[in-house]
């Protein structure tokens, strides 16, 4: 009797430990950061019109980057075409909402549409998570842009669609909603990473062959991760359209896809705080070095090179390393790099 109770207690504590393990892996430092997260959606109410605009843009970028971070950092799939999913979401939302579908339902349809497109291209992505995935997602961007430009009668063509209805006709909603979605998304990803499926996806990234020997369907995991990533992208796209009131194919080009990937890697892939730091950095970079325009491309390249060469954990990894040094004790270890076996 005594022994049984003992085992029960330890099993429960192990569950807690497991949850903590997942939280550690996602870089959320427990209660304080969750409180901070909950405070984020309130921020837009405090700022003026300009701050609200910045928060709107940034929230949408973080949301799109969050999905990408999960795909890249947790499932190890290289996606160079997140902007394609944004475009699908934005156009699905604009078309549905334009036809009189209630905006929130239209946003749900946009998310589903992005997920469906991801499912459709997933056979090309899951087989080869690096080269194949990179090309397939790049091809998706080209196809979406070409179709949107071609189907002028439906999408307004290259000149774009005007008067996209807002998601909620409440002042400040445009700035609030992406952050609410970011918080919900972070909590979801944190929970999902700790489930058996999330575990299987992470194992598939570390070593696909070994994971298969353990009974993990690596390709199914990658497919699911791609669909989740696309749904985050679709929602971000719908919100982009709703907040601008205007969409055009050149808003969702390959440059945006690469920029999102740089946010993820620069911020620290697979870490919850990574997309936040990365997106903020890339977003404010032109303001910081705005005088050196001729050098912008060169500068972006140099920064990306520095990050990939010197802090593979990204800015989040750099910050936690600095914190470790300052505190002088082992707090959380930097996020593991994907164990790549040649």
């Amino acid at each position, binding site marked *: 009797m005594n022994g049984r109770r003992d085992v029960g207690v330890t099993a429960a504590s192990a569950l807690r430990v497991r949850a903590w393990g997942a939280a550690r892996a996602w870089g959320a430092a427990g209660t304080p950061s969750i409180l901070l997260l909950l405070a984020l959606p309130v921020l837009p109410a405090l700022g*003026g*019109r*300009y701050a609200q*605009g*910045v928060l709107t*843009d940034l929230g949408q970028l973080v949301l799109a980057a969050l999905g990408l971070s999960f795909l890249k950092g947790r499932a190890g799939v290289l996606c160079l075409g997140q902007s394609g999913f944004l475009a699908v979401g934005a156009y699905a939302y604009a078309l549905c909402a334009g036809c009189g579908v209630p905006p929130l339902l239209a946003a749900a349809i946009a998310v589903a549409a992005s997920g469906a497109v991801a499912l459709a291209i997933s056979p090309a992505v899951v087989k080869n998570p690096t080269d194949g995935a990179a090309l397939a997602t790049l091809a998706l961007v080209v196809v979406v842009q*070409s179709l949107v*430009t*071609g189907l*002028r009668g439906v999408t307004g*063509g*290259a*000149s*774009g669609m*005007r008067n996209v209805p807002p998601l909620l006709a409440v002042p400040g909603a445009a700035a609030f909603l992406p952050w609410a979605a970011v918080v919900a998304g972070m909590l979801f990803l944190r929970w999902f990473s700790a489930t058996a499926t999330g575990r299987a996806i992470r194992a598939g990234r570390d070593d696909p062959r070994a994971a298969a020997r353990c009974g993990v369907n690596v390709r199914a995991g990658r497919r699911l991760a791609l669909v989740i990533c696309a749904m985050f992208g679709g929602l971000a796209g719908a919100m*982009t359209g709703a907040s*601008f*009131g*205007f969409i*055009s194919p*050149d*808003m969702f*080009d390959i*440059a*945006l896809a690469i920029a999102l990937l740089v946010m993820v890697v620069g911020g620290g892939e697979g870490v919850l705080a990574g997309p936040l730091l990365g997106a903020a950095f890339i*977003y404010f970079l*032109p*303001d910081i*070095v*705005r*005088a*050196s*325009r*001729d*050098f*912008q*491309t*060169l*500068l972006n390249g*140099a*920064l990306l*090179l*520095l990050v990939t*060469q*010197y802090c593979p954990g990204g800015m989040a990894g750099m910050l936690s390393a600095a914190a470790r040094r300052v505190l002088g004790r082992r707090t959380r270890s930097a996020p593991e790099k994907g164990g790549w076996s040649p």
Partner: protein
Amino acid sequence: MKRWIAVVIVLVLLAVLATGCPKKAAAPSGEPVKVGLLVCETGAFSSYGLDNLNGALMFAEDCNAAGGVGGRPLELVVYNTESTPARAVAGARKLIADDKVVALVGLGMVSEASAAAPLVAGGPVTFVTCAAYQPENSMMFGAGVFVPLHHACICRWLAARGVTQFALLTTNDATGEVAEAGLRRNAGQSGLELSIVERMNPADVDASAQVARIAAAKPGALVVWVVGKPLGVALRAIKTAGLDVPVFTSHGNRSLEFLRSLAAIEPAEFYMPCPVDAVWESLPTAHPARAMNAGFSARYVKKFSKIPGAGSTDAYDALALLCQAFAAVGTDSAKVVAYLEAVKGYQGLAGTYDFSAENHRGLGPDDIMIARVRAGVLTPAD
């Protein structure tokens, strides 16, 4: 080794930061008049955006040398739109809320202007340098000759030459869409038929298939409405196919050194509709635009070591008009709009501006003419 690379990269970054000094030319004293500049300095439209920027910098220099705006210095606050609507909107928001500018100049792409339009509906006055975009609210003005007027000019010219049907080869982006719509409408009005429209991607390296389809339709003329590299690709395909008809192209190509290097594949009859500033050297000596452009061009070449491009005169004129309004009625948006709407017969670099409450674009069909291109050099066609 790793450390060595890091040192080099950091040095490069520092050099970059050091060279990019802010462009402020504030000779006259007093509270500066801040005008925001939103130009595509990088990305697909950077060639045009750079012309915009250079023209604006040129004006700021001229203006401040001449005592500024009513004694106050003119200050330009420049943001790069990276040829993307999202950045254009972010830049416009920052200029309005943070830098508190009294006017905006720029937005060289249709999608940039469309995306930023709702933001500036309540002011400040915005001069869009995109010639293909029709200002959609009362605070917006357009620089340059509205692109459909270019198309009208082409159609009139073709009709006068007895051509009945013609073809269009253009890019599959907003430029191409505006071109197709403009040419279709104007062709109908001039009794012409636009018999075939073909598209190419700006990144394409070959257009043989499109040109072969055009050749099969036996058009009386061909409009190649593309800007930059695709023009070379298209002209090469036309030359290879042996298609011998008059070819028209966009004035967006006019300043390119590139045009000169295409001499070997230039069609026998090669035309371009363009505003007066493109052919100022051929204008009669008495023409007021000639002297203005001669001075501008000389100073421009000296400052930037290249001849002024399509976007430079537009940005210069836009700023000149705005500063004249500021000097006259102050910086209140409503007053500036009212002032500008009353401007008649203002001689700018790109033509004679006549604004009204309905016409926020100033330049009209009279400010455009067909120029013939020979070995990359433009002369009036008739």
